[in-house]
């Protein structure tokens, strides 16, 4: 059944191939809306406006979410406010990046 959880699960399969963490762990997803008609609206950001992986990540989201049953449209709303900060990475992700070793 298509809902926010299944979309988030799909987004957790899309990795930033340079950082090595998925979009959920990185805290890049600000919101997910799923309409009754199957339209998925994702509000998200990137680590930086010059992120080298922007196109790859956008394509990855399209491929991963479009595989879900019942999806009729996907909208990715890329925003820079609030600006992403490392604090948005989950504790597990911070451990992977060695962020505790300041």
């Amino acid at each position: 059944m298509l809902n926010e959880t299944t979309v988030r699960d799909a987004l957790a399969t899309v990795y930033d191939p340079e950082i090595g963490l998925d979009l959920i762990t990185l805290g890049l997803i600000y919101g997910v809306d799923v309409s009754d008609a199957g339209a998925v609206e994702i509000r998200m950001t990137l680590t930086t406006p010059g992120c080298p992986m922007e196109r790859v990540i956008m394509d990855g989201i399209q491929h991963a979410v479009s595989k879900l049953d019942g999806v009729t449209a996907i909208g990715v709303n890329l925003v820079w406010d609030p600006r992403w900060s490392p604090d948005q990475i989950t504790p597990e992700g911070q451990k992977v990046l060695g962020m505790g070793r300041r």
Partner: protein
Amino acid sequence: MAILTRGPDAKPNPPARSGGIATERSPEFSLPLRYFGLGVAAYLVAMLGLVLVGPALTGSPWNPRVLGLTHVMTLGAIVGMIMGAAYQMVPVVLLAPIWSQPLGKASFWVFLPGVLAMVAGFWFSQAAWLGIGATLAGFAIAAFLVNIALSLLKGAQWNVVGAFLVTSLLALGAAVSLGMIRALSYANPAGAWVIPNAMTIHAHLAAFGCATLLIFGVSYRLIPMFAVTAERDHRAWGVLALGTLGLLGIACGSFHQLDGLVRAGALVAAASAALWAWDALAMFRARTRRTLDAGLSYVYAAIAWLILAAAMGVALAWGWIPPGIPTDRWAIAYAVTGMVGFITFTTIGQFHKIMPFLAWYHRYSSLVGKAKVPLIKDIYDPKLAWSGFWAAQAGLAVAVVAILAGSGLAVQAAGLLLAWSALATAGMTIQTLKR
């Protein structure tokens, strides 16, 4: 299914920033790859050359073998890398597609024999080869400059990185013109055009005006991109203004033989370097990823080499050389510190980030979300990269001390270490292309 990549209330990216280091505007991979390949190969040859001509580096900077080796490094490795990086980065940083990819590809086959003939001309003291090589390399670089200029005129979105790029390419054009005049004068002494301190001006236009200022500019985008940190370019215009003024002071002062102007220029150029180093260190300190990989470590370490080179340059201009060290040796040590420690190590460090990315991008980007794909770090051997990094730092430290101390044998030992770092970079390139 309707698929949007940006929703209606999405705020646009800040103007003139890229969507990465590869976009739909990027050229065919084979265009930058041939120049990168030349850059890596020339770096390896130059470092092996240190083993051969080590003792000559403790003498005069105008020794033919030293000049040959210098041009393997500057023309082959540094200009090769710069041309590859410009063909890759101009479309994504300034959003301007390359005007003519065939011209970029064809001019490589003029540039390569030009570099080979020039180096052979220096090495064997053959004036004719030098003249032919300089002409071929000069034409190829002119074609590159025209190609980039027409690309920019085609619709670039201007920003401070573009200003650094234009300044750098103007300096490259001036350096190459001066170099050609010198080479042709050498080949035809009867019609020689005497320019006071031509080699000093040529060297600073190429090393500081072209390579260093270009690195300063692109680093304001690449360090944040690779270290995952916020961009910090509000002082970038100041760095460019100081750098340009400093370069003009050194060049005009040398031409008119005004020591005071050269000294002032050296101080202003050093201030530009210090300001950039401050920004670069701030970006590194604010990085998200605390653990530095070998590529970023090259760039980080290069900041220290830059400060040392700037101090050595100021000391050279002001005559503050420690007693007992001949000026020529100091000048060579200064050139090696700046050219290898800053320009080469920064270039190699950023290459260690860009090359795996490009190789990964061209093989796997279309599969993301469809199939399990490796991460970029999975197609990269960190042990090999780290061994190259440490060999490079140790090799350069030994080389600088050995040149100052006048020990040719130690310079040759340093050459072995530096050659290993070049070999590791070549190995990384081949591995990432094969995986």
